[in-house]
């Protein structure tokens, strides 16, 4: 299999990025959901948010690469069997997923940097605060982060159900392509 996408198939890079990001996003959602309920005396009280922020920043960097990769190696053409409405819905849906991802990540960053403090990424490097003057920044960004995260995971589930619909009902190669097993 190739690293790059072809006109009919996804390459290894896109496939790996897709599934890795999916796992990390659901992992971060679970971690975030769990960590806000921690008691002050839990040994995870500081570790969990530190991990959540570190992984989130790395995810942001990976997503930037992913956007770049889309230009370097555009996605394969839509399947011939898919009509105009399906193609529009697919474009819209995937754009919403990208938008949701960046909304969640950027709002999260704005919470922790609201007082000018940088975010430490696994203790290896720091991401400085760039914006600190949004009114009630930590709270406003917090609301956006929470709602966007829920919207993202719910829509990701819809996205997964759509893929299953294509696979089991339409019986087309949509899901197979993202599993690296499609017809050439």
């Amino acid at each position, binding site marked *: 299999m190739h690293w790059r996408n072809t006109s009919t198939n996804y390459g290894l890079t896109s496939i790996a990025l897709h599934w890795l990001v999916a796992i990390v996003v659901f992992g971060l959602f679970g971690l975030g959901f769990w960590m806000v309920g921690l008691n002050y005396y839990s040994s995870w009280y500081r570790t969990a948010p530190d991990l959540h922020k570190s992984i989130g920043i790395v995810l942001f960097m990976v997503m930037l690469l992913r956007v770049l990769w889309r230009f370097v190696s555009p996605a394969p053409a839509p399947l011939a069997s898919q009509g105009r409405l399906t193609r529009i819905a697919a474009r819209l849906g995937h754009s919403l997923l990208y938008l949701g991802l960046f909304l969640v990540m950027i709002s999260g960053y704005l919470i922790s940097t609201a007082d000018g*403090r940088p975010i430490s990424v696994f203790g290896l490097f720091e991401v400085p605060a760039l914006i600190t003057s949004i009114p009630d920044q*930590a709270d406003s960004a917090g609301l956006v982060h929470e709602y966007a995260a829920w919207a993202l995971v719910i829509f990701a589930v819809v996205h997964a159900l759509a893929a299953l619909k294509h696979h089991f009902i339409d019986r087309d190669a949509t899901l197979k392509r993202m599993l690296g097993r499609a017809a050439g």
Partner: protein
Amino acid sequence: MLKKTLAALVLGSALVGGQAFAADYAIDKQGQHAFVNFKISHLGYSWLWGTFKDFDGSFSFDADKPEASKVNVTLKTASVDTNHAERDKHLRSDDFLNVDKHPTATFESTSVKSTGDGTADITGNLTLNGVTKPVVIAAKFIGEGDDPWGGYRAGFEGSTTLTLKDFDIKMDLGPASQTVDLIISVEGVRK
């Protein structure tokens, strides 16, 4: 007759001038010569200090009759600041101050008892996190007089200790942190 009355008035005011008398003061919010600070033990290992940046109020004070004094303060709970964005966000949440549901906290004095020269216990109702309870603030008069800009000011400091659970604060921060000390310093400009 007029000259005598005038002389008496001038003499009288010369005697009275410089002495305190009952007056109403507005807390100097414009110049922010007022602070509502607090400290709470962190794990029993150090003091965590914070402040409420947005509050307003007034007091009436008579140095000759301190027990007739009154004080009213209203503060915006969302203005809490402990110099840490994530901590302050947590403090504003329903684990602590629940600022969305209770955006203000108020203190209204009900009685003042002199406890010595320039000190008094101010009893009043504190409404915090939607709970109203009587508290006693140990107050100390610092000074009063003319300011260089045409005003007349008086200043106090006060302190009290609150038990978090008394005000339905949900989060339990451990045995060393059940109470928080309020340390208040206000200057009022005579109205």
